């Protein structure tokens, strides 16, 4: 694709139309992403460093950040396992109702989150039909996160799993590998990049979740209050810099997680080399 660049390394490879395309893309990206992100940083730093530090070390805020990050990690870990298993079942097994399940997986994507919150409240609220109530507990946060992040790993792993040829597994078997060894040494390493990509999305989604948990969790400070709720609280109390400070922290955590997982992915997919 960059053959021109190889031939004439000093000159730009952009044609006029490609330049226009890049310009439009950058403008679009700036308007939608860069400027808002910058605005958060600017707002957060309005009161200077002491104010920022005070905002994020506020005990209630710190508790909300801890709760959110911890549950996002837990949920992502569960998704890595369950998402892979579900993708496996969808790709490898033929059973009655498979196509229905295939469609149902996407419901957490499609459903407005507040509707999800309502459903969860009806089922697992204080007078739900199962007699199990997670209302006003941190497990409500966990449950809501699980619900909305379910499709990410499944949908990331599924196409990659479909690509793995059965012949590759047969080759390993003929070389003496047991079913478990085939899974551990052939299938999982091939799936790792997809699992990690799904995990990243799942984590990011959990970090920002609001609608699905706001009804069930009760939003109790120090117990079930997540960062998004805490931010809304700050804004309602006319503390915009405080909300922006939390947002800036979330931004840094999200970036750190994305970068870390990217490094892990490179490590994992490069492990067989050498």
């Amino acid at each position, binding site marked *: 694709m960059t053959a021109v660049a190889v031939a004439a390394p000093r000159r730009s490879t952009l044609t006029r139309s490609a330049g226009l395309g890049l310009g439009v893309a950058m403008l679009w990206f700036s308007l939608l992403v860069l400027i808002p992100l910058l605005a958060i940083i600017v707002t957060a730093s309005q009161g200077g460093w002491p104010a920022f530090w005070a905002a994020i070390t506020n005990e209630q805020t710190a508790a909300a950040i801890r709760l959110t990050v911890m549950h996002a990690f837990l949920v992502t870990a569960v998704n890595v396992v369950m998402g892979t298993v579900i993708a496996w079942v969808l790709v490898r097994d033929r059973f009655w109702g498979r196509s229905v399940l295939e469609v149902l997986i996407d419901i957490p994507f499609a459903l407005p989150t507040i509707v999800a919150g309502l459903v969860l409240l009806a089922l697992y609220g204080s007078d739900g039909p199962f007699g199990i109530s997670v209302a006003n507990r941190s497990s409500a946060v966990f449950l809501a996160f699980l619900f909305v992040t379910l499709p990410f790993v499944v949908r990331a792993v599924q196409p990659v799993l479909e690509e793995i*040829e059965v*012949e*590759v597994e*047969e*080759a*390993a*078997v*003929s*070389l*003496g*590998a*047991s079913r478990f*060894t085939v899974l551990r*040494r*052939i299938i999982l*390493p*091939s799936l790792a990049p997809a699992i990690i990509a799904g995990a990243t999305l799942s984590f990011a989604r959990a970090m920002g979740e609001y609608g699905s948990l706001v009804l069930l969790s009760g939003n109790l400070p120090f117990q079930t209050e997540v960062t998004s709720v805490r931010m809304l609280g700050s804004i309602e109390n006319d503390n915009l810099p405080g909300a922006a400070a939390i947002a800036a922290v979330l931004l840094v955590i999200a970036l750190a997680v994305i970068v870390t997982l990217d490094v892990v992915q490179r490590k994992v*997919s490069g*492990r*067989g*080399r*050498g």
Partner: protein
Amino acid sequence: MSIEVKGINKRFGDFVALDNVDVSIPTGRLTALLGPSGGGKSTLLRIIAGLETTDSGSIAIGGVEATRLPAQKRNVGFVFQHYAAFKHMSVAKNVAFGLEIRKRPKDEIRARVDEMLDLVHLRQFAHRLPSQLSGGQRQRMALARALAIEPNVLLLDEPFGALDAKVRKELRDWLRRLHDEVHVTTVFVTHDQEEALEVADEIVVINEGRVEQIGSPDELYDTPANDFVMSFLGPTTRLDGQLVRPHDVEVTTAHSPGSIPGTVRRALRVGFEVRVTVLTDGGESVVATMTRATARGLDLGEGSRVWLRSDCLAPDVPEPLAG
């Protein structure tokens, strides 16, 4: 090691893939399973490898009963048409895989991998990923991977089927030479009769789940057991209702006893040979091939009157030939 296949039956639903197949493959030979697609040859190979189960019958490898042995335990090297490379592993890791499973010492694995990579001329690609290799190189890697475990038998399922014509031919010659070096009992599946004739010591012709004939390439070509084998192994044409090879049809411009008169409809030069289509007076369209010199000597053109005969005609009543 030898392979003994006895009374193998295999069905996929209503489809009979193998119908009471008996084959005996001798030690150290290069054997081709030849036949049209869907004829059951790949199924037979997979059953030998243990990748497929049989409905009835038995398999013995090197005299040891293997019918119920899982694929992992058969110590069989298997090469697939589409390479089946472990894409996330380097070439060296691919080749080392079977040895690592066998928990061989690290030094031994390294030495064996180097030896194998030398054998398939991929030493300088040891650290590449399969995706960075060409098709032919990938297949050589797959071969090294299969040979690394010192298999009892080496099985190749249409090994050159995914490669382009030129590479296929190179690899074919190379497989022949490799086999002369390594001497492992080798069975390969192909639907390409030229490939089988060129490479194999022995050919098993399989069609519609049955073995049609087993023999050396010469035997099969010269004395085919039936019309199917004859037409599958090379070009054929019908002369006086009999299946003959076009190059066995003798074309003359003078009448001789037992020859059939006809008119040339078409004379087509294809490379080194001339392909003549003759319509006999009996209304049969016969194809004869000859060298360019012969065709020139006969001065053949559209509309020429010719007489056709074949030595293969009426083999029970050999005509006395002068000279």
